[in-house]
């Protein structure tokens, strides 16, 4: 069975690293690269062999109402592939970047724990187990945000940890309410029993989970921690946090819980729409004013998460296809942009856009890939961001929400404006910079090129034949709400 291995491999690697870690980080680097490569192969393999099926695994062979089950359906497999791709490039990027910070193996141990937590969250079928894996991922994330050891980093980590633990407490409260109502923690059993109960219970549970996971997703009223945490972390971790953590812990759980367990109540879909469109506009407005490159990117994460929530709130199959597609695309281009910011910071010692200039001569790979990523996030064809945004906008018009379509278009234009600023000041400015503080090595360049190529290649997911084969099983999991419980229960 491949399911438990996807959790065991990163967890085991984390512990092995702490055992063998000495002064040098060479062993830790080799182990980490080995583990992320294995994870990438395993998750791709499991996504392909799963197809439209669902695999379940009962821990300690306890049957479903009693034990904890792991569930691998197309949506989980899709998330797993996304996590594996970003963590692979992130590990590649880390090699030089973390040596430059003169840190040791502890980074890699925390990195693998972060991966364990995320893989666990997307695979578990038990709601308390989800909480535990979420805490594992968050602990690692708090440690990694504070990793650089500067005052700002401790400050950001403290804010993040306070916000994270408030939201975790709210989620635990929600779990307690669910358990007291349904006497079960297995998601499929909850999905089965909840419709038979008083519908006020759905409101209570939905409200608590919306607040808790909304904080983790950083949708607009809950966004305050995100720009600090994501901009203070080391660059490869910013890309993990912005690229996959807010999706695995936030958006994925919202999808799984509100669509598959609660059956997509109308009220919460409207809430998704409203929060999504507010996030799109306010996030992008706040981003335009920033001069710190990573902070600008962090505000854009809020705005792009808005698109995903908007797509989910529209809830037609086309819109959900757009949301899932955009989630994948955002992971790719936002991680790439954070790598670009990281390599600029490494090479020049600053990431303030006012101090940058024409970098196309000294950092050709960085400025080239940042152009691709900027075009991609602003929605310029033929890059992937264009297609996913287009699908969401078409879906909004088709379902009769022209106002939301307008919001999405305006948000996209403002995104273009703010990335023109990045390109104009950061990479193609007048001031020609000749010398660098550090050289950007091959591993960092390789990570950036990988993602830049993927930004172009994933556009192919829109082509009809490929879309049916890869994306439709994922979308079907979300749109056929009650199917989840029948599949997991084995009926």
């Amino acid at each position, binding site marked *: 069975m491949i399911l438990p291995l996807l959790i065991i491999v990163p967890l085991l690697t984390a512990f092995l690293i702490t055992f063998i870690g000495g002064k040098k980080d060479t062993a830790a680097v080799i182990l980490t690269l080995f583990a992320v490569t294995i994870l990438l192969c395993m998750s791709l393999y499991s996504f392909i062999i799963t197809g439209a099926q669902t695999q379940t695994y009962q821990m300690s062979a306890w049957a479903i109402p009693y034990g904890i089950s792991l569930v691998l359906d197309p949506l989980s497999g899709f998330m797993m592939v996304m996590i594996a791709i970003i963590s692979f490039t992130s590990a590649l990027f880390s090699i030089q970047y973390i040596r430059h910070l003169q840190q040791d193996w502890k980074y890699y141990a925390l990195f693998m724990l972060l991966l364990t937590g995320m893989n666990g969250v997307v695979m578990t079928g038990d709601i308390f187990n989800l909480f535990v894996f979420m805490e594992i991922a968050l602990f690692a994330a708090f440690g990694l945000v504070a990793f650089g050891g500067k*005052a*700002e980093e401790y400050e950001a980590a403290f804010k993040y940890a306070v916000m994270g633990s*408030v939201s975790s407490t709210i989620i*635990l409260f929600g779990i*307690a309410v669910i*358990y007291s109502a349904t006497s079960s923690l297995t998601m499929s059993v909850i999905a089965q029993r909840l419709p038979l109960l008083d519908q006020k219970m759905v409101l209570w549970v939905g409200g608590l989970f919306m607040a808790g996971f909304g904080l983790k997703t950083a949708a607009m009223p809950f966004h305050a921690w995100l720009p600090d945490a994501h901009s203070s972390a080391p660059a490869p971790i910013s890309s993990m946090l912005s690229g996959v953590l807010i999706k695995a812990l936030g958006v994925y759980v919202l999808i799984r819980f509100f669509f598959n367990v609660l059956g997509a109540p109308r009220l919460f879909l409207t809430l998704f729409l409203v929060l999504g469109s507010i996030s799109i506009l306010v996030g992008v407005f706040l981003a335009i004013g920033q001069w710190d490159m990573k902070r600008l990117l962090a505000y854009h994460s809020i705005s792009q998460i808005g698109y995903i929530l908007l797509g989910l709130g529209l809830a037609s199959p086309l819109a959900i296809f757009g949301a899932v597609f955009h989630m994948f695309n955002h992971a790719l281009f936002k991680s790439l942009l954070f790598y670009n910011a990281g390599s600029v910071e490494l090479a020049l010692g600053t990431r303030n856009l006012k101090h940058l200039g024409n970098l196309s001569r000294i950092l050709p790979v960085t400025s080239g890939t940042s152009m691709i990523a900027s075009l991609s996030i602003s929605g310029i064809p033929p890059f992937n961001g264009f297609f996913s945004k287009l699908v969401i906008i078409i879906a909004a018009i088709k379902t009769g929400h022209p106002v939301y379509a307008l919001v999405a278009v305006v948000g996209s234009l403002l995104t273009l404006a703010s990335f023109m600023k990045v390109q104009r000041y950061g990479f193609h400015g007048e001031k020609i910079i000749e010398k660098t503080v550090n050289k950007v090595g091959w591993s960092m360049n390789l990570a950036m090129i990988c993602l830049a190529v993927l930004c172009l290649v994933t556009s192919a997911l829109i082509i009809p034949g490929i879309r049916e084969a890869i994306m439709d099983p994922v979308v079907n999991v979300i749109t056929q709400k009650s199917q989840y419980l029948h599949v997991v229960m084995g009926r």
Partner: protein
Amino acid sequence: MTIYLMCFILFLVGFYGVITKRDLVKIILSLAIMGYSTNLFLIIFAYRTGAHYPILEKGTSVTAMVDPLPQALVLTSIVIELGITALLVALAVRLYGKYKTFDITKIRRLLG
């Protein structure tokens, strides 16, 4: 019903503390209070008046039992809270080392 209400009030006390207090240590304590109230909530809905403890001994026929699962959940959640509190205190100590203050309003080197 009253006991649930009081438990919820405890939760709100913690929440109020997190939002309004300026001292890092008081914020950490408020978070702990929020956590305790949630644990208490888990325990009190598992309690059944006049019920037996959930161990089946020889020769006894048990009718009503206290639900043991939330107690296991609370144990897990206490361990998690211990971890988070330790992490927060460590961060607070480091922050004091950098800023020489515990006042959250003076710890703002990050731009808004």
